[in-house]
């Protein structure tokens, strides 16, 4: 099933990189094996719950309206023990066993094929680094290969956050001072949306991200592009934008590999042009939205750590946006 669907879906995914609807963010629409197991468990639990609720409702109904013989039977202590103790004890034993069994580590737990990505939760964005000989820094959008387990190594820079991509698997908290790990495997190419799932103050509601799952060959190509330094500006507008970027001090917070900008306080922008969103998934990546985020970031995402840059004239903002869009 996996390989058949991959090609057309992959094509859609690639096309969607230019900006389609949001990624899938649903527990019940799994795109990976971990999420798939949990979704199956979920259906089982819903069924169990429905059955037990029905039993209680029926018992209550019969207690009120049933025949005298039935009601006498229901009124006995043995009934309480049978339905209220023995029946739950048996069913819960089975459920507990199944749940514990699901917690066993995966068979493919050898570390050789695993890809490692470090993610640090910050107020209110995601610092990403692809582990390797030279780590590749990125931010706010994570690209992974289909069919290969990815181990996310999670940390937090300030307060507790939580890394959650419902369609790929459960969540794991990012706790300052501790390192936690989450293993996810995407079985289908596509775009999966994630969101911070531990209240971290301020615009926690707007701290989302996307995971783009690409078929292996596309992923390798993407990784190579990502490892490369920033593309040099090719038009006058873009060059003007680059000058403004340096002059306004943007490089103190934001890094663009291959240029003088090397700040690590804010998200890495080396390949921002190839991402789907700006402002940590608050807006689609378009020229206009880039302008908006630079000039009115506090209105888009109140409380975020980037001040508004109203010092720029409209043409300067255009140049900046053009430059950033060129950083593919």
């Amino acid at each position, binding site marked *: 099933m996996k390989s058949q669907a991959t090609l057309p879906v992959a094509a859609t995914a690639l096309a969607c990189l230019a900006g389609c609807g*949001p990624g899938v*963010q*649903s*527990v*019940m629409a799994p795109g990976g094996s971990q999420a798939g197991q949990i979704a199956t468990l*979920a259906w089982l*639990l819903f069924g*169990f*719950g429905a059955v*037990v*609720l029905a039993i*209680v409702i029926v*018992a*209550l109904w*019969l*207690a*009120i309206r*049933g025949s005298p013989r039935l009601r*006498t039977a*229901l*009124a006995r*202590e043995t*009934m*309480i023990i049978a339905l*209220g*103790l023995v029946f739950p*004890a048996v069913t*819960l034993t089975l*459920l*507990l066993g*199944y*749940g*514990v069994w*699901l*917690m066993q580590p995966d068979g493919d737990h050898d570390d050789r094929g695993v890809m490692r990505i470090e993610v640090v939760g910050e*107020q209110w964005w995601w610092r990403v680094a692809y582990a390797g000989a030279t780590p590749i820094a990125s931010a706010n959008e994570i690209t992974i290969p289909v069919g290969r387990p990815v181990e996310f190594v999670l940390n937090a820079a*300030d*307060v*507790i956050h*939580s890394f*959650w991509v*419902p369609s790929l698997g*459960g*969540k*794991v*908290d990012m*706790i*300052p*001072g*501790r390192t*936690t*790990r989450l293993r996810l495997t995407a079985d289908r190419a596509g775009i999966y*949306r994630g*969101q911070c*799932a*531990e*209240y971290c*103050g*301020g615009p926690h*509601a707007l701290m989302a991200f996307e995971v783009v799952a690409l078929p292996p060959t596309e992923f390798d190509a993407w990784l190579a592009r990502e490892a490369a330094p920033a593309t040099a500006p090719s038009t006058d507008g873009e060059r003007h934008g680059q000058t403004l970027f340096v002059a306004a001090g943007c490089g103190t917070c934001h890094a663009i590999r291959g240029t003088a900008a090397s700040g690590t306080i804010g998200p890495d922008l080396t390949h921002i042009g190839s991402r789907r969103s700006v402002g940590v998934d608050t807006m689609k990546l378009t020229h206009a939205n880039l302008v908006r985020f630079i000039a009115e970031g506090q209105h888009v995402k109140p409380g975020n750590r980037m001040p508004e840059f109203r010092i720029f004239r409209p043409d300067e903002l255009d140049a900046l946006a053009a430059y950033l869009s060129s950083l593919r």
Partner: protein
Amino acid sequence: MTDTSQRRLASHPNKLPRPKGELEALEAAWELPKGWRILSAVNNTVIGYFYVGAAVLFFLLAGILALLMRLQLAVPSNTFLSAETYNQIFTMHGTVMMFLFAVPVVEAMGVLLLPQMLGARDLPFPRLSAFAFWAYFVGGLIFFGTLFFDLAPSGGWFMYPPLTGTQYSPGLGADFWLLGIGFIEISAIAGAIELIIGVLRTRAPGMTLDRMPMFAWTLLIFAGMIVFAFPAVILATMLLELERALGWPFFIPQKGGDALLWQHLFWFFGHPEVYIIFLPAAGMVSMIVPTMARTPLVGYRLIAVALIATGFFSFGLWVHHMFTTGIPALSLSFFSAASMAVALPSGIQVFSWIATIAAGRLRWSTPSLFVLGFLFIFTLGGLTGVMVAMVPFDWQAHDTYFVVAHFHYVLVGGMVFPLFAAFYYWAPAFSRRALSERLGKITFWLMFAGFNVAFFPMHISGLMGMPRRVYTYPAVMEWGVLNMISTIGAFLFAAGVLIFLVDVVRNLRPTVSQPIGNIWNGPSLEWMHNHVYGPRSVPLVESRDPLWDQPGLSEESKAGRHYLPGTVTGVRETMLTSPIEAIPEALLRLPGAGWTPILAAVLTAGFFMLLTVKATVPALLSGVLAVTAILIWMWESDPRPLARAEIGHGIKVPTYVSGPISHSWWAMVVLLLVAGALYLSYAFSYLYLWTVSPQVWPRPEQLPPIVWPLMSAALLAASSGFIFLISRVLPGGFRNNAAFVVLTALALIALVGGLGMEILAHWRAGLRPDADAHAAMVYMASFLQLDLVLALVVMAAFVIARRLAGLLNRRRRVVYDNLSLLWHYTVAQGLLGLLLVHGFPRLQ
């Protein structure tokens, strides 16, 4: 023994006619203050009324906050509330609902109903209940008021650090939460002490433990759970406030602290907390169902087992709130197993109620409707609880709207619906008119429909990926329709509450003396003729359903044929009975109205709140005045021994008892359990931080030389010795007075010296509390010790004053006994602290 008890519970009633003036004397002793002076009342009926009213007020206030939240979330990208405002509102909604409504309202129903249900005239410590109520009410109002000054906390009701540390929450909001809620919890503990002793020691004669109303069982377990659960959050509160105010780094990872320490402490409290809220509501259901089904409760024994099991098991679940924190899977599964286990007792209770309904003929009434609504909603909530107890499922559902749906189903279903059933059921016992059945049914259907419309969709939006505590969401996520439905449901539910309020205004006529009475034909004692002093005479109970099985009991009691038909000593009294078999043991004299409890409460609230806004001098002043008020109140306690009193049925009991039979001794023991639980939480925290940050723990050579803790220990032990010796000089006389004062002074010097030496030892060794987590923990031991030492200093001075005024001697010794209990505990705690701080690091 059998003979004696049979003689004691002699069933020949008192002779009629009763002496002239007996009833008048009783009524005079229990007369209520008039007009605005009712604020100085301390009896359980008046305080109970105030308490329930205050709790309902907070329910309405927090409910309005919820409506504001729902308005903001009704449509995507809404700008009705800013992020910061919304964050304050959801924090306050949760905090007010949990701390200012849920626990207080069930405690309030206990204060209002319990004595009457047990056949007692009042709770054993009326002024303590008054104090607890006023402290809660004043503190709660001030806390809620922070919203209007943009000073409300915004860290969520569970206030996780580091978000709530000074760096990320620099304002006063977090401090208001910590100091405000910390002090309201003290109020809850006072109430818990009251209830434990009330249930175990003031029941009507013959009301053995297996004849006790189920509501009394639940209040006993509720109170016991508070004793062991609340101290954990009180410690956590202290730790975070010390971190914020003085920089002691308990939760700062860079200095060896750990954010998860807070979570362990908070949830060790937080999980029992929800069963603390649920159990009394279940107890109320166990009282309402038999009356409505017109048959005795089926499965009484099983329910008692279920309640105790729930109480215990709920202490073993707390890590299920931390399933996503990266704790090893095996550890998680222990708590998953325990979370399943707690479902079993709930199943027993649900089917016991069904069995009772089956055994009888259910009468359709508003209380019955609310009970049926409860059964449906609570069962559904319990089932989603089993779901989130499964660890892999929780990895998806945690911190999403699925969990929001779950806990509202169990809390609203499990507590609010039984509460409304209780209002409609018990109103006739306290009001001249019953509430309206017609309006009641409308209220029910609006609340039931509104609740399900509001909260069922949240299961779905949660599974569709909507996290908790988000002030908005983008339209593309397609959560808008579900959220709009939830908002509509919330307003439906609110409409139901509004109809209820209309009903209350139109029909509730509070009275202490002439309620409309037993319109439901209920079997328990609160349905007897009732007055502010409870029954005219305390009945001899021979069954679980006295009004059904003992015909004429109410009339006999009213005629004065049973125990205590008047007042023996001229003041308010109730009977002290044995804990299991309810054999009369002593006459308990109770205080009447007074101003010291409310004054002390307001001044204590003032102390905490002024400290929060850093007005230190006014705070200290308020604190000193509060202590003064308490000392005045205490001075009026401990009335002198009188001759043995005849309580009816030809039985005489002592009017003054001391030692393990005294209710005051019991209260002190319960307080020591609280203190012990607090200290054990501290010891856990110390050892836990060591497992997380062993690198900040000292090597043995870095510790103060062992002679220091040995000297401290010697001083502590000596102080205990001096206190013990005082028992030898209790008989009166000048020489003994002098010895008394000298011994007390010596004991104080030794106690304070022991503590001072410990602090000095560490200071001299160069340890500073803000250096790292280990240092902070070391000084925390001394801080906890200091709290008790300060209390003992005040108590010792008080005891000396009592002695010199001739109010403390070999017979009249309760005050000394209480002092000595607390003293020996403090010494033991101090020794344990020394062992931990100086001994543990030397184990390496």
